[in-house]
């Protein structure tokens, strides 16, 4: 059971990274980016492509080597470029024309299918793994089994979130992003280059989204629909964590991850005891949905409203 909580935390970290990508677009451009999940998948598959041509090498404890870290870095850069290009080609014209938000949603939805088709076309419908060997499992007290790869995912996520948080609240550019999110017209009058802010936001979204995708590939495996299947959980982390809250998204992401992993097992035990032939692993998102509804009814501005995590 404790092992499921740990798995939930790992999943929560991955949800957080995807969620942060969506959160940034929502904060500055005011629409839920439906393509976020598919970009997440694309980031993983781009890294996969690089990992096939870059010698993997070895690192202590983890199953992957520096080659994968380099692939991750290249994937982050490439996805940031792709997302920026899509933003400039498709979404910027909509912003300049003050298009209704339905146009943004429809465009994002269209891009989702375009990118998903590209993924199927290039990498096929099967699953892929970054490494073929079995990871070393650490057996911890309380029946917790965890791999060094998963520990790496959690630590790297926490470090990245800390860096983003620092950037957001302690740098001039980060504050300019917050100012633009607060009031774009006033930001323009104040001399903040709005075009640059939108580019920065898209680049950050690309970097974290690719990282999330690659981490999912490391901790679980790569599937063409992996990002799409996590999309709702990412949206919920953004909503429950509070609008634009970086730490809130991490907190909500972890809660949702744990609820999905732990809740599934608890309910499965109950179903098995009652001889009810339902396989709960296919309904993990239900727990995230229930959590979202409870939060929307009780704390519509996010679970961490008024706390230090509401940032």
């Amino acid at each position, binding site marked *: 059971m404790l092992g499921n909580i740990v798995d939930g935390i790992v999943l929560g970290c991955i949800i957080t990274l995807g969620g942060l990508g969506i959160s940034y677009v929502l904060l500055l451009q005011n629409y839920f980016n439906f393509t976020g999940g598919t970009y997440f998948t694309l980031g993983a598959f781009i890294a996969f492509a690089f990992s096939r041509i870059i010698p993997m090498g070895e690192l202590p404890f983890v199953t992957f080597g520096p080659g994968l870290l380099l692939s991750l870095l290249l994937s982050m850069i490439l996805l940031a470029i792709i997302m920026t290009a899509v933003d400039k080609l498709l979404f910027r014209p909509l912003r300049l024309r003050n298009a209704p938000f339905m146009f943004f949603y429809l465009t994002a939805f269209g891009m989702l299918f375009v990118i998903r088709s590209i993924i199927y076309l290039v990498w096929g419908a099967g699953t892929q793994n970054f490494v073929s060997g079995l990871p070393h499992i650490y057996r911890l007290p309380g029946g917790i089994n965890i791999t060094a790869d998963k520990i790496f995912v959690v630590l790297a996520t926490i470090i990245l979130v800390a860096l983003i948080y620092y950037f957001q609240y302690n740098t001039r550019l980060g*504050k300019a992003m*917050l*100012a633009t999110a*607060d*009031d774009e017209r006033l930001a323009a*009058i*104040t*001399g*903040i280059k709005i075009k640059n802010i939108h580019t920065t936001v898209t680049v950050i979204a690309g970097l974290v989204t690719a990282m999330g995708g690659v981490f999912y590939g490391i901790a679980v495996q790569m599937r063409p629909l992996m990002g799409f299947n996590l999309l709702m959980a990412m949206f919920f982390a953004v909503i429950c964590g509070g609008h634009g809250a970086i730490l809130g998204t991490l907190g909500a992401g972890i809660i949702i991850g744990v609820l999905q992993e732990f809740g599934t097992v608890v309910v499965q035990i109950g179903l098995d005891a009652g001889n009810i032939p339902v396989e709960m692993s296919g309904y993990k998102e239900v727990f995230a949905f229930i959590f979202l509804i409870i939060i929307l009814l009780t704390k519509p501005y996010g679970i961490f409203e008024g706390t230090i995590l509401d940032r």
Partner: protein
Amino acid sequence: MAENNFLEVDNITSGYGMVDVLFDVSISINKGDFVVVIGPNGAGKTTLLRSITGVIKPKKGKVYHLGEDVTDFNPEEMLFRGISYVPQERNIFSDLKVKDNLEMGAYSYKGDYEKRLELIFNVFPILKERLDQEAGTLSGGQRQMLAISRGIMMEPELLILDEPTSGLQPNLVTEVMDSIVELQKKDQMTILLVAQTNQAIEEADWGYLLRNGELILDAKAKELMESDEVMDLYFGG
């Protein structure tokens, strides 16, 4: 253009969508002047300021700054020319702290940031005490002080203020107006102010009266104050 034609608004017609709000309005501002624009609600005062600062594009007419046609400039370009605009509403970043608002005001400022802060804290000492407070939680007067401060962080040559004393208590109106006058003297700014207060008109060098989107009168501010048109508008004749 000559030095005394610091800013020239030449016959602009402006509005929103299909609706025109301002009709063939011309005004002229000399460097170092304190100019006030008055008029009843709906006269087009805010539209005039927005048209000058590039927030909206005039449908007709031109805006010249130091002789150069700046009609199609955006607010950011106008700011880099030294023209700073403080709107009447939504003029601070409510979610940011006071110090971050000031920092954003100087986002593209190349001069001595600390010196600007010093000037602001001299004029608005209360802001120094509230640096770590979220701007949205400030009182009405403090918000206006912060908005003005944000507007002058870039050391503008021309500060355009849209009703900075609107909705304030009478004692705060005096305090804010005194501060604007003090800032003008200390920073040697030109000021274009939309206001409805006697004090603003008394402090101004020149005044314009707008009504229904048309320029009714322009005169020395004190003459404007005593004109029949102003008496008629504000005191019912």
